[in-house]
């Protein structure tokens, strides 16, 4: 006798295999669309994958935690990936040693601006405390930002989405902002985009200019580090 279709579905939806498979399929489709559209930052592969998966889980009435039980094997790799960021950080760092003081100062200034302005604006417009804490690390690369949000009592999953949106905004509006300010130096342009919009901005910077890309990658790493150290300490002082 053939088992009912729903029985198969009930069995499959509870196995980590299906959660892992749909995660990879959704991401690969997102990545395909992104490449197909000439790497347009608005078609960010993670954003597409997240939208597809949320739609699928809502349609099939699957709880997020059921999905996450399987997908956690992908999620787990965020830890070692964060550690691995030390390698590109080191590679970029050796390239920009000469202007180290200027680079450090501008990244810390940008890092503080990002956190304070994000929280300040949202607070003034009446956002809740959870939202404020989730917004604070929004300019930091996702794995670090999620760790920071978790530690301060924000919502790591909301932070993940806000970080990606920030990256897209930076990649789309970065060139325009920098042209308006008449910043011509590729190093300064790269630093600004990397500090404000992490990996997504860095990918965009590498497309435009190699020097801008290297400085952007460095800014992404150092801003992650600066925010991870300063924000929780600041939080402890205030609350």
């Amino acid at each position, binding site marked *: 006798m053939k088992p009912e279709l729903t029985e198969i579905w009930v069995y499959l939806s509870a196995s980590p295999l299906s959660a892992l498979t749909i*995660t990879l399929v959704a991401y690969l489709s997102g990545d395909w669309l992104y490449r197909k559209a000439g790497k347009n930052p608005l078609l960010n592969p993670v*954003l597409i994958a997240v939208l597809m998966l949320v739609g699928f889980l809502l349609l099939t009435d699957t709880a*997020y935690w059921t999905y996450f039980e399987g997908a956690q094997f992908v999620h787990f790799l965020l830890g070692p990936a964060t550690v691995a*960021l030390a390698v590109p950080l080191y590679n970029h760092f050796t390239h920009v040693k000469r202007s180290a003081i200027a680079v450090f100062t501008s990244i810390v200034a*940008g890092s503080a*601006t990002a956190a304070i302005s994000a929280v300040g604006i949202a607070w003034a417009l009446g956002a809740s405390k959870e*939202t404020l804490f989730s917004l604070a690390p929004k300019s930091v690369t996702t794995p670090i930002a999620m760790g920071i949000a978790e530690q301060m009592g924000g919502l790591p999953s909301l932070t993940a989405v806000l970080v990606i949106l920030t990256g897209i905004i930076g990649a789309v509006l970065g060139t325009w902002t920098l042209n308006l300010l008449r910043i011509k130096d590729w*190093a300064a342009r790269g630093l600004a985009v990397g500090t404000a919009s992490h990996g997504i901005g860095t990918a965009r910077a590498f497309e435009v200019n190699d020097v801008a890309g290297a400085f952007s990658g460095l800014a992404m790493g150092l801003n992650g580090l600066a925010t991870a*150290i300063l924000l929780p300490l600041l939080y402890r002082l205030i609350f």
Partner: protein
Amino acid sequence: MVLRYLTLLLVCQLAGEAIRIGTGLPIPGPVIGMVLLFVGLLVRRGVPEGLQTTSGGILQHLSLLFVPAGVGVMVHLPLLADEWAPIVASLILSTVLTIAVTALVMKGMGRLTQRGEDRP
């Protein structure tokens, strides 16, 4: 991907977590692990080839790793529906402001350090 270097990454992360719990530092364990590895590379003055390929392999698909967490936003859809206006305003204004401040400080510092030199 070289197993030895994958182990090194996990050891750094584990040490980072241990330091975080031991000292009560409010910094995520993996970030402390990243600092440990970075300092190690500075001391060693170079990246071993195997580590270069291993970290490159993991970081190449870094964005895939955010997907499971990102999907968690479905749990917060009511919050997003309530607070989309402050969130959108904060994201756009703060990002543009951050780009402007970082670039202007870098430009100012560049001028300061290159004073006297004949550079545009």
